[in-house]
C-alpha cells in the first residue's frame, strides 16, 4: 500500500495510491457525499453524488466534473471538492433524488440516522422546484424482519447489490425502468437470504428498515447504547444494542475490521427480542413444599448462602453462553474438580479437541477477515450458514479471490471498481470444496461438493493431507473417485496463497476435526501459510473450555452416586444438553438446585432457587469466540428490576453470604478479570480486551447516550419529580448518560458504544473512525487473540483415518441438523425467529425414503436413545444414505444426544 501526493483544493495530502478519489477523501476525514458507493460493495458510479472537479494541472482553471468513486488516484492529481460547479452539481443530484421522495421524515423510521438526510444537508439543497406528482409504489410483505416502504427509494441500487452480488441471494431484484425502478421480490414473501437484515443499514433511506424496531420504535438519538458482542453463535460479531425505557429496541452492527466488518446475520440482528419476552425471570424465586414464590434479593441470598455453607458438597455447571467472569466465579465457588460444562458430551469433547488442536496445529486460527481473504478453502463437515452464519458470508467473498487475481488483476482492474470487476469475473469462482452429510446453502458457490457420512468426510480429509504431504498417514481402501477428489483438493490448497481449512463440532466426529488439523499441518510442512477455523456453537464455548470445565456426563454420574448437596446451574437449561431421562435422574438425585438465568425454562422449574441473571445487555463480561478472540461486552442499561444483576455478582454475593473471604476482592468486573488472569495465565490477555473502569478520556467518562438523548428527567416523573442521579457504573468507563467524552472525539474502539460524528447521523459515520476506509478502526479492532499458531515441531500428525461408513439396513446414524433460526436457545424466543423456525422432522435421503416407501410429509416412527417419536419426513437432497437428520435444539428434540443409532419405520 504505497502512498502518493495528491492535491485537494490546492492542499497536498498523502494518500493510498491504489484507491479511488472518494475513498481517499473519506479516509482523510473530508466530507464528500455519496450514495451508491459502499465500503464493502465498492464503486459503481450510478448516483453521481460524489462529483468533484478534476484539473489537468495548476494552470487549468476550468477543470472537468468527474465521479470521485470511479477516479483512480494518480500521483500529483488535482481535484476540488469546494469548486462552485461541483457543489452546484452535487446539490442538483439531491434535487433529482428528492423529486419523488415523500419528505415524511417526521414519521419515517430512518429519520435521525438517515444518510439521505445527512447528504441533503451536506450539499445545501433545500428548495423544491419539482411541482408534479410523485411516483408511488405498492409495498411488499418481506417477512418478519425487514419492512419495505418503496416510495422513499432513491434508486441507489445498494440493496440489490448487497443482496444479490455480495450475499448471493436469489429472491430479490430490481424491476422496472426510468424513475419507476422497484427493489423487492417477484412476489410478496419472506426474504430467503440469512443476511437480509443488513438491508436496513445498507439502504441509505427508509425503504428497508428494521421491522422489529418498528414495533417498539424509538429515535436513534433517544436510544442508550453500549459496545456489545452478539450472544447467538461463536463468531463474536460486535454489535451496538439500543435500549429505551428498560426495553431493548434493536441491534445494529458495530464495525470490527477483523471480525464482522459491516454486516451481521439475521439471527444476531433480530434474536435480541428474547430479552423482552414473557419468559424473562425478573425476580428471585424460591420453591418450597411444592409452591414457588417470588423472593427479595436478601431472601434469595440468604437461601443461597445456606446452600453453599462450608462443608456442603457442591457442583457447578457452567455455561457456554455465560461470560468468562460468571463461569470463573462459579468455578471458584465449587472448585475446579466440581466445575462442569453445561454442554452435550459429544460436543464438549469435540470443542476441547478443537481448541487443543488449534494450540498445537501450527496453523493459526482464521479471523473472519482472514476467511474472506482466503483463496482456496476446504470445509469439512460444517454447515456454516446455519452454525456460524457470518462466516458463510465471508466465504462467499473468498470465492472471488482467485478469479480476481487471475482475471481482474491481469486487466489491471482495481478491486474497488466493483462494476468492472464483476463484468470481468462473471461467474468465475475460486476453489471452495464442501464436504458435508447434506446439501448446504453454500453449495451454490462451491467448486465441488462431497456428500457423505462423517467418517467418510474424515477419510477424505486424511486423504487430502496425505496427498499434500506423503508423510501424513495414508487412507486405506479409499475409492478411486474420492482419492481423485482428494488430489484435486490438495492441489488447489497447495497452489493457493492463503489456503484455509474449516471444520467444527457439528458433524459430531473427532476424526473430522483431526483430519482438518492434519491438512493444516501438511500444508505447513509443505511451506504454505495455511489457516484453520473450527466453528464452535455458542458465544463462549471456547472460554468455558479454556476454564477447564469437565464433561457434563461426569456431573450426571457424580450426582447419581449420591452425596452432592447442591447443584448450581449457570445460564443453562440442562434439558437441552442431555436426554430427558438422564436430566430427570440428575434432578431427582440432587436435593438442592440453584439456577441462574435470564429465561425461565425446565431447569428453572426443577430449581429450588431461581436467580434473575442479566442478559448480555444488562451485564458486562467477556466472551471468547471460535477464533480465540476475547472480547468485552458492556451493559447497555440498568434494568428496572433491581434484582436482576450479572450472574457473577449473584455468585459473589452468595459467596459473601457464606463467608467465602476471597469474594470480598470482587467489587467490580476488573477485580474478577484480575483474578482470572492470575489464576489462568493462558487467559491473562483478556484484561486488555478493553480499558478498565478507571480509564478516562481527557478526564471524562464515555457516554452511552447520544448527546441529544431526551426525556431523562421526564421519563421517571410519574414516580418522582426529583431528577435521579444517573446510575454509577463500577464496571466500565461508560456512563449511563449523555454527558462525557462526546463526538467528534473518538473513544478507544472497545469502548465505542455507537458510531456518530457531526453531520453523519447514520452508520456511514464509521468512515470517520477508520484511518483507511474498510480497514481497522483507529486504535485497533477490538478483541485480543488468545491462541496463535504453535511452532511446527510441536505438532505432529494425528490418528489415522477411521474405516469407511457402512450404512446398515434398517438402522440409521442420527445427526443434528442446525438451523440458523430455531437451533439457538436464546434467539428462538424472538417472535420473528420463532416464526421462521422449523417444526420437528426426520430428514432422510431420497433413496432411504424410497426404501421406506415414504414421501415428503408422511409420518414416520423414529426410535433412538430409547425414545420413540412420530415425525414428518423431510426428503433431504443429496443426504448420504444411512444418515438421518433431526433439527437440533428444536422443541421436544432439544435434549437428543448425538451421534445416535436408531430406526425409522413408516408410521401408522
Amino acid at each position, binding site marked *: 500500500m504505497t502512498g502518493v501526493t495528491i492535491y485537494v483544493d490546492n492542499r497536498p495530502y498523502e494518500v493510498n495510491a491504489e484507491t479511488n478519489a472518494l475513498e481517499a477523501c473519506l479516509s482523510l476525514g473530508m466530507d464528500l457525499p455519496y450514495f451508491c458507493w459502499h465500503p464493502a460493495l465498492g464503486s459503481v458510479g450510478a448516483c*453521481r453524488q460524489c462529483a468533484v472537479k478534476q484539473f489537468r494541472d495548476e494552470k487549468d482553471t476550468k477543470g472537468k466534473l468527474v465521479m470521485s468513486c470511479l477516479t483512480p488516484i494518480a500521483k500529483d492529481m488535482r481535484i476540488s471538492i469546494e469548486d462552485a460547479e461541483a457543489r452546484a452539481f452535487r446539490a442538483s443530484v439531491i434535487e433529482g433524488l428528492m423529486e419523488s421522495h415523500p419528505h415524511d421524515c417526521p414519521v419515517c423510521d430512518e429519520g435521525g440516522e438517515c444518510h439521505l438526510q445527512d447528504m441533503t444537508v451536506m450539499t445545501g439543497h433545500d428548495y423544491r422546484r419539482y411541482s408534479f406528482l410523485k411516483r408511488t409504489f405498492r409495498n411488499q410483505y418481506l417477512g418478519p424482519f425487514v419492512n419495505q416502504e418503496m416510495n422513499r427509494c432513491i434508486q441507489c441500487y445498494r440493496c440489490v447489490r448487497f443482496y444479490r452480488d455480495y450475499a448471493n441471494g436469489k429472491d430479490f431484484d430490481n424491476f422496472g425502468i426510468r424513475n419507476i425502478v422497484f427493489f423487492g421480490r417477484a412476489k410478496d414473501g419472506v426474504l430467503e437470504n440469512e443476511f437480509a437484515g443488513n438491508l436496513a443499514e445498507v439502504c441509505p433511506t427508509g425503504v428497508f428498515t428494521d421491522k422489529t424496531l418498528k414495533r417498539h420504535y424509538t429515535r436513534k438519538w433517544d436510544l442508550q447504547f453500549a459496545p456489545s458482542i452478539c450472544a447467538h453463535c461463536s463468531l463474536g460479531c460486535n454489535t451496538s444494542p439500543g435500549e429505551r425505557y428498560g426495553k431493548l429496541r434493536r441491534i445494529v452492527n458495530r464495525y470490527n475490521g477483523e471480525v464482522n466488518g459491516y454486516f451481521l446475520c439475521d439471527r444476531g440482528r433480530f434474536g435480541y427480542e428474547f430479552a423482552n419476552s414473557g419468559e424473562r425471570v425478573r425476580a428471585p424465586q424460591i420453591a418450597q413444599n411444592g409452591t414457588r414464590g417470588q423472593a427479595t434479593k436478601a431472601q434469595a441470598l440468604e437461601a443461597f448462602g445456606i446452600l453453599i455453607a462450608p462443608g456442603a458438597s457442591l457442583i457447578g455447571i457452567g455455561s457456554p453462553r455465560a461470560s468468562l467472569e460468571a463461569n470463573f466465579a462459579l468455578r471458584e465457588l465449587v472448585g475446579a474438580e466440581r466445575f462442569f460444562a453445561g454442554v452435550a458430551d459429544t460436543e464438549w469433547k469435540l470443542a476441547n479437541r478443537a481448541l487443543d488442536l488449534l494450540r498445537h496445529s501450527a496453523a493459526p486460527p482464521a479471523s473472519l477477515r482472514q476467511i474472506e481473504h482466503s483463496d482456496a478453502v476446504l470445509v469439512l463437515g460444517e454447515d456454516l450458514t446455519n452454525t456460524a452464519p457470518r462466516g458463510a458470508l465471508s466465504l462467499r467473498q473468498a470465492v472471488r479471490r482467485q478469479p480476481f487475481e487471475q482475471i481482474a488483476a491481469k486487466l489491471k482492474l482495481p478491486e474497488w471498481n466493483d462494476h468492472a470487476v464483476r463484468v470481468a469475473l462473471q461467474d468465475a469462482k475460486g476453489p471452495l470444496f464442501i464436504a458435508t452429510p447434506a446439501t448446504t446453502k453454500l453449495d451454490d458457490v462451491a467448486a465441488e461438493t462431497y456428500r457423505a457420512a462423517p467418517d467418510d468426510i474424515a477419510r477424505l480429509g486424511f486423504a487430502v493431507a496425505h496427498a499434500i504431504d506423503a508423510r501424513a498417514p495414508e487412507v486405506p481402501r479409499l475409492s478411486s473417485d474420492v482419492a481423485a477428489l482428494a488430489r484435486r483438493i490438495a492441489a488447489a490448497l497447495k497452489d493457493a496463497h492463503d489456503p484455509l481449512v474449516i471444520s467444527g463440532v457439528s458433524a459430531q466426529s473427532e476424526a473430522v476435526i483431526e483430519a482438518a488439523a492434519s491438512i493444516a499441518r501438511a500444508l505447513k510442512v509443505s511451506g504454505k501459510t495455511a489457516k484453520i477455523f473450527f466453528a464452535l456453537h455458542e458465544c463462549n464455548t471456547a472460554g468455558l473450555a479454556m476454564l477447564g470445565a469437565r464433561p457434563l456426563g461426569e456431573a450426571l454420574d457424580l450426582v447419581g452416586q449420591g452425596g452432592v448437596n447442591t447443584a448450581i446451574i449457570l445460564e443453562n437449561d440442562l434439558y437441552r444438553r442431555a436426554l430427558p431421562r438422564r436430566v430427570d435422574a440428575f434432578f431427582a438425585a440432587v436435593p438442592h438446585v440453584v439456577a441462574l438465568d435470564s429465561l425461565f425454562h425446565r431447569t428453572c422449574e426443577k430449581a429450588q432457587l431461581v436467580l434473575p441473571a442479566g442478559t448480555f445487555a444488562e451485564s458486562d463480561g467477556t466472551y471468547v469466540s471460535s477464533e480465540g478472540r476475547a472480547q468485552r461486552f458492556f451493559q447497555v442499561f440498568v434494568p428496572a428490576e433491581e434484582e436482576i444483576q450479572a450472574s457473577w455478582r449473584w455468585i459473589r454475593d452468595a459467596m459473601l453470604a457464606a463467608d467465602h473471604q476471597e469474594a470480598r476482592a470482587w467489587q467490580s468486573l476488573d477485580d474478577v478479570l484480575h483474578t482470572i488472569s492470575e489464576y489462568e495465565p493462558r487467559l491473562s490477555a483478556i484484561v486488555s480486551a478493553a480499558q478498565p473502569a478507571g480509564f478516562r478520556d481527557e478526564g471524562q467518562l464515555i457516554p452511552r447516550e447520544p448527546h441529544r438523548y431526551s426525556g431523562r428527567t421526564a421519563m421517571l416523573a410519574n414516580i418522582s419529580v426529583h431528577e435521579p442521579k444517573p446510575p454509577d457504573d463500577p464496571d466500565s468507563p461508560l456512563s449511563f448518560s449523555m454527558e462525557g467524552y462526546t463526538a467528534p472525539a473518538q473513544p478507544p474502539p472497545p469502548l465505542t458504544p455507537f458510531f456518530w460524528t457531526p453531520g453523519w447521523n447514520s452508520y456511514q459515520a464509521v468512515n470517520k473512525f477508520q484511518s483507511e476506509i474498510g480497514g481497522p478502526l483507529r486504535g485497533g479492532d477490538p478483541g485480543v487473540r488468545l491462541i496463535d499458531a504453535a511452532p511446527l515441531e510441536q505438532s505432529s500428525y494425528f490418528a489415522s483415518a477411521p474405516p469407511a461408513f457402512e450404512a446398515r439396513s434398517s438402522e440409521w446414524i442420527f445427526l443434528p441438523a442446525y438451523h440458523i433460526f430455531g437451533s439457538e436457545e436464546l434467539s428462538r424466543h424472538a417472535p420473528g425467529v420463532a416464526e421462521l423456525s422449523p417444526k420437528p422432522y426426520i430428514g432422510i435421503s431420497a433413496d432411504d425414503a424410497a426404501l421406506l416407501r415414504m414421501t415428503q410429509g408422511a409420518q414416520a416412527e423414529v426410535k433412538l436413545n430409547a425414545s420413540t417419536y412420530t415425525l414428518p419426513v423431510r426428503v433431504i437432497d443429496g443426504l448420504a444414505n444411512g444418515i438421518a437428520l433431526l433439527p437440533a435444539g428444536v422443541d421436544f428434540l432439544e435434549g437428543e444426544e448425538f451421534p445416535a443409532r436408531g430406526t425409522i419405520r413408516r408410521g401408522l
Partner: protein
Amino acid sequence: MPGQEKPLTKNIRPDGTAPDLKAYERAGGYDAARKALKLDPPKVTDLVKQSNLRGRGGAGFPTGMKWSFVPVGKDAPHPKYLAANADEMEPGTFKDRLLMEGDPHLLIESMIIASHAIEADVAYIFLRGEYTLSAERLESALAEAYRAGYLGQNIFKSGKNLEMYLHLSAGRYMCGEETGLLNALEGKRANPRAKPPFPQTSGLWGKPTIVQNVETLCNVPGIVANGADWFKSLSYTADGGTKLYGASGKVKRPGLWELPMGTTAREILEEHAGGMRDGLKFRGLLPGGASTDFLVEEHLDVRMDFTEVQKAGSRMGTGTMIVLDDQNCPVGMVANLTHFFAQESCGWCTPCWSGLSWASQMLDALEAGKGKPEFLDYLAHETKFWSPGNTFCALAPGAAEPLQSALKYFRADFERHITEKRCPWS
C-alpha cells in the same frame, strides 16, 4: 470520384426483394472476405484505420482505432466476440433497416472480415426485435452462409472457425448502447457499464469484444476489396466513404440516399428529399436523429460529416435528419422526443432518471398550456445537468441536444405557450 459509386446500396433492389447468396456472389460478393482471410489480422485493421472509416452508429469513433485496442496474437484471451449493433432505435433513423432488409449478405460478409481482424470466435447480430423482415432475411442469409461453408468450422477452407448468431432484442433503447447491448446479450438488465475498462479488453462475458454499427460494418468489404485510398476518394471531406443519409418529416420525398460523405444538408433536403411540401416552410432539422442539436436555415450549407456538423454546434449522429416545418409545434416535437428519452431511461444514474422525467412533465405541461415561466429556466438547467460526463452514458446528453437547441432557436415559441396559456399550433 465522389457521387458515382454506391458500395452500400448497389445490390438493393427497387422491388424490395433481397439478393440471395448466389446473386450476391455474382455481383462480386464474398471476394473481399476471401481476400481478407489471407491477410494477417492486424493488416486488416490497419487498412480500415487508413481508410478513415468512422462509426455510423452515432458516436463517429474511428473504426480502425477501435479495433486496434483488441488484444490479438497468441497471448490474447479467448473466446473473443464481435457484435453487430442492429438495434436501430434512434427516433428518425431507419438506415440499417434498409441495409439488412435489402442486402443481408453484405452485413454477414462484413462481419466475417471484422471478426478476422480481431480474431473473434463468435459473432452476434443484435437485432431490434421489431425488425421482423430483417430477421427473416438475415436468418435466411445466415443459413445460406453456413451451408456454403462461409460460417462455422474452417470457413472458406481457411482453417479458421467463426460462429455467427442472430439475437433478437426483447426491447429497450438502451440495448443499442454498446455496453447495454452486452448486458442484454448476457441476459442481464440493459443497464450500461462504466468505461474504462472498454469492451475491447473486457466486453461480452468479460472477454475482448467489438460492438459495431451495421452501416459501419457494411463499409468494410468495399475497403478490403478496393483499398483505403478508394474509400477516401468517395467522400467530399476528410471522413472517408459514402453515407446513407435520410430525411423524414413533412418533405416531399422522405427516404434514404447513399451519397458521398460530406454532402451538404441543403442538397439532401432540397435535391433528394425534394424540399418542404407545398405550403410549408422549413424551420429546422435534427441532422442525425433525435439526439442531435437543431440546425436551422443558416446552417443548410454545412457539409454533413462528423467534423463540420460539430463546428456548427450539432452532431451528425446517424445522418438521418428529422425535418421540422412551420405548421408543427417545436415544443410539441421536443416534448415527444423527451417523452421517448424519459421512458427509455434505464433508471441507473440520477440526472437521467430524475431529470428526463421532470423535463418531460414540464414540456407536456407547456404543450397543454399549463406551463409556468420558471419552467424555461428549469429546462435549461436540466440540459446542463445532463452534460456528457455528468451522466453514466450518452442517453441523457443526447436528450439534452434537441431540447437545448430548441430553447435557443425557438425560444419565442416556448414563451408563447406560457403567455397564451395554450399551444399556438393547436
